[in-house]
């Protein structure tokens, strides 16, 4: 049996001389490696930016909708709704004859007027909050809210009312601003919802 040995065609002393890389080979290898690293890092950065876009879309969408879903349920089941403003713990409703829109919404879940819920915009820290007649129950539902007129009472055509008619659609519009990191531009987001009392 005859075995094929490596470098059998080359003389042994020359094989030891060819064992090192030349400067050109080394530079080409480094260049290729650099291209590979740039590709991997570039795809990683791209992935991070995609993740951020996705996170913004999904987190804002889901979080904001969860926040307003409770409000929607409470509007549907309440007995009275009133649009106005909420300043220093006092709600001021929009008078009949004026455009029924404002930064706060007062709900009476029952006919008992001492039991109420207020959703309002706090301009100090740009948060959207919920409070009730029970002291110490104020909670922040959303932050980075940019619009001050959040609530409006509409008719079924979508026109903003100027009276306090019974069958009204409460329309809520929340506009958010979320600065983004490595993605150019800024993330703005709008959430609109409507709800109507079921007991008209």
């Amino acid at each position: 049996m005859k075995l094929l040995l490596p470098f059998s065609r080359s003389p042994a002393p020359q094989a030891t001389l060819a064992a090192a890389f030349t400067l050109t080979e080394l530079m080409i290898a480094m260049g290729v490696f650099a291209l590979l690293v740039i590709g991997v890092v570039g795809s990683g950065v791209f992935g991070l930016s995609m993740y951020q876009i996705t996170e913004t879309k999904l987190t804002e969408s889901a979080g904001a909708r969860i926040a307003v879903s409770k409000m929607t349920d409470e509007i549907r089941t309440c007995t009275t709704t009133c649009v106005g403003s909420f300043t220093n713990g006092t709600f001021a409703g929009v008078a009949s004859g004026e455009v029924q829109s404002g930064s706060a919404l007062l709900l009476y879940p029952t006919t008992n007027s001492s039991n109420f819920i207020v959703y309002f915009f706090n301009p100090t820290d740009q948060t959207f909050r919920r409070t009730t007649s029970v002291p110490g129950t104020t909670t922040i539902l959303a932050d980075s809210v940019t619009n001050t007129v959040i609530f409006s009472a509409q008719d079924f055509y979508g026109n903003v009312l100027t009276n306090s008619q019974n069958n009204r659609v409460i329309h809520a519009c929340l506009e958010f601003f979320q600065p983004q990191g490595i993605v150019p531009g800024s993330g703005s987001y709008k959430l609109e919802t409507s709800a109507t009392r079921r007991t008209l």
Partner: protein
Amino acid sequence: MTLVEVAIAMGVAGLAIAGVVNGYIFCTQSAAKSALSLAAGARAIERLEQTRAASWQNASSPPVDQLVASNFPPEVVTLDLPASASGIITYATNYIQISQISTNPPLRRIHVDCVWSFRGSATLITNTIETCRAPDS
């Protein structure tokens, strides 16, 4: 290592990187589509809530009936979504069908379709919501 080997290796690495990037793009598009679908559902519900505010009083004299399809023509709305740097807005159209399913007791079926397309695609996507409504008591 020959130039051919280097070129092949770079090609393979390029394919791998392209696969990873395409994966990211696919995930992002899926997330955007999911968020748009959620927004379309919310818009359909919003339209449904408007029908809830329409008066339908059988017992009054004369009877009031605003719950008819002609009062709710097709409505073009924007789907609320975090705006991208390019500022692409997705539009949707709400269609309403109102049909009487029972006269005694009076009951109507309200069917809302929110039709939209993803990034101008020819394929239309429809989010549907349906409910039944009785007259105002």
